[in-house]
């Protein structure tokens, strides 16, 4: 193995792993002091990564407090360090980590708030892109419509959560204790549409029918499959109207980048 690669792997172990006195000292001239010198790099590495998580998950931090957050973030950093220097991309699995993190077991909604914050962060930093012109659909043969698959623009995301994470997120970020106390943790799924337009990133809650339909559609299922997702045998009155309104709203708001029909390559 190259000596350079060996040195870099030993640095990785020193920066992210538990203290390793068995590793050879890198600085022969300052052996006695080298542990403290490594600690400077370790400190920068960990604080930079914890800070990246702090920026991406501000409501989670406020919910659990600084000390708890730093402890959880430090364990996450050690277990799942970033794979890229683009730190806006760091934290995709933080919500799943929190869901399995024993000290957070008493806060049932914490991982859902983290999932929402991750979606908001993704939306905020998503690349700029053009919207599908709805007029393009008019060129389709009506028989092709049911096979249409829409491809969402980067930054558009539909979340299905167990907790009303949107209410908690707004209440905690605005420091509204009354709103926080009024949050009711129900047992029905909550559908949240996260997107970015010229005014910024927004989160809106969708009803159950529109939510199920949009979830399937934004996941790349065909129009027909998305309609099936709504129809679970006991469709409420007015569901068709709700589905039609949701599709019209998605098209009007420019949430799709493009569409494909059966037989076309998906892009």
């Amino acid at each position: 193995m190259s000596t350079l690669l060996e040195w870099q792997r030993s640095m990785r172990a020193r920066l992210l792993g538990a203290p390793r006195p068995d590793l050879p000292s890198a600085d022969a001239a300052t052996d006695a002091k080298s542990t403290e010198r490594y600690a400077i790099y370790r400190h920068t590495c960990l604080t930079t990564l914890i800070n990246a998580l702090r920026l991406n998950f501000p409501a989670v931090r406020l919910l659990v407090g600084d000390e708890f957050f730093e402890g959880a973030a430090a364990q996450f950093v050690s277990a799942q360090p970033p794979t890229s220097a683009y730190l806006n991309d760091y934290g995709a699995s933080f919500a799943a980590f929190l869901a399995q993190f024993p000290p957070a077991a008493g806060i049932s909604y914490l991982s859902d708030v983290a999932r929402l914050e991750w979606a908001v962060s993704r939306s905020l930093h998503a690349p700029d892109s053009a919207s599908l012109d709805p007029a393009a659909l008019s060129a389709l043969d009506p028989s092709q419509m049911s096979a249409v698959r829409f491809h969402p623009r980067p930054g558009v995301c539909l979340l299905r959560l167990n907790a009303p994470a949107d209410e908690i997120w707004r209440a905690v970020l605005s420091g509204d204790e009354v709103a926080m106390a009024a949050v009711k943790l129900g047992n029905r799924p909550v559908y949240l549409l996260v997107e970015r337009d010229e005014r910024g990133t927004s989160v809106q809650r969708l009803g159950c029918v529109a939510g199920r339909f949009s979830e399937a559609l934004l996941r790349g299922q065909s129009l027909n499959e998305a309609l099936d997702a709504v129809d679970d045998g006991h469709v409420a009155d007015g569901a068709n109207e709700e589905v039609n309104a949701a599709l019209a709203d998605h098209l009007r708001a420019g949430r799709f980048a493009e569409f494909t029909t059966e037989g076309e390559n998906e892009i």
Partner: protein
Amino acid sequence: MFESVSGSNASGPIPAIAGIGLRFPHHRQINETRPAIGWLEVHTENYLGGGSTRRMLFDLRDTYPLSLHGVGLSLGSADGLDMEHLKRIARLVRDLQPQLVSEHLSWSTVDGTYLADLLPLPMSEEALELICRHVTQTQEALGRRILIENPSTYLQCPQSVIPEWEFLAEVIRRTGCGLLCDVNNIFVSAFNHNWDARAYLQELPAAAVGEIHLAGHALRTLNSGAQIRIDDHGSRVSSEVWQLYRFALSIMGAKPTLIEWDTDVPALEVLLSEAAHATQYLNAIAEGVHEHAA
């Protein structure tokens, strides 16, 4: 939007005057008030996405010359460059057309893990060949020359056999890249490793210097009782570094000079006053007031 900048401050090369690092706490103030600053530098990795942050940078392009300063390409990675990251940077460089693009003589990534710091590189033949290969690869991907910055270090690797200034000069000679001469880093590393900071500066190829960095650093005492200087970019430039800067200008001539501040970022006015201080030294050089090397 950014194509139509001819005739504005933003066209042409970075002038040999003082600029500041643009950081998030000052975005709104700079965007709305457009204060008189020679040029702006941003960390490349903060602008790789879309949305309002990117839009603001492209708007500022109409007023200020810009420099993209990368902190994550990891030119010294033994297992190769992150090609996805290089492509993202290349797209931003293509769209923004900044006056300067720079990176560091350091490494941050190994086995696909980003370690979020500018880590020291052994000054070895192996590292020299690797860095030259990666600088060339980067310059080809970006279609332009880059500057590489001398690091601040707290450790010297046992495999180091080439003095850092010679290593830098050789990278420049072999790849045609330029040098981002960080005077604070030279001061910090010289103190930490008992080097002669002025001799370091004199050994650098002055004509290759495309930019100078100035920043504050901290002085700490280790448990062993030894003192160490830490490049934390969290205070005003120290008086010793201003003196070393004056010496650097006396041998390099006036160069675009940047004030960096990343920790406990103060009011914009503090950065502007530091830039004004650098301007005094730059003006003195332009007027022919040279320091005689001691």
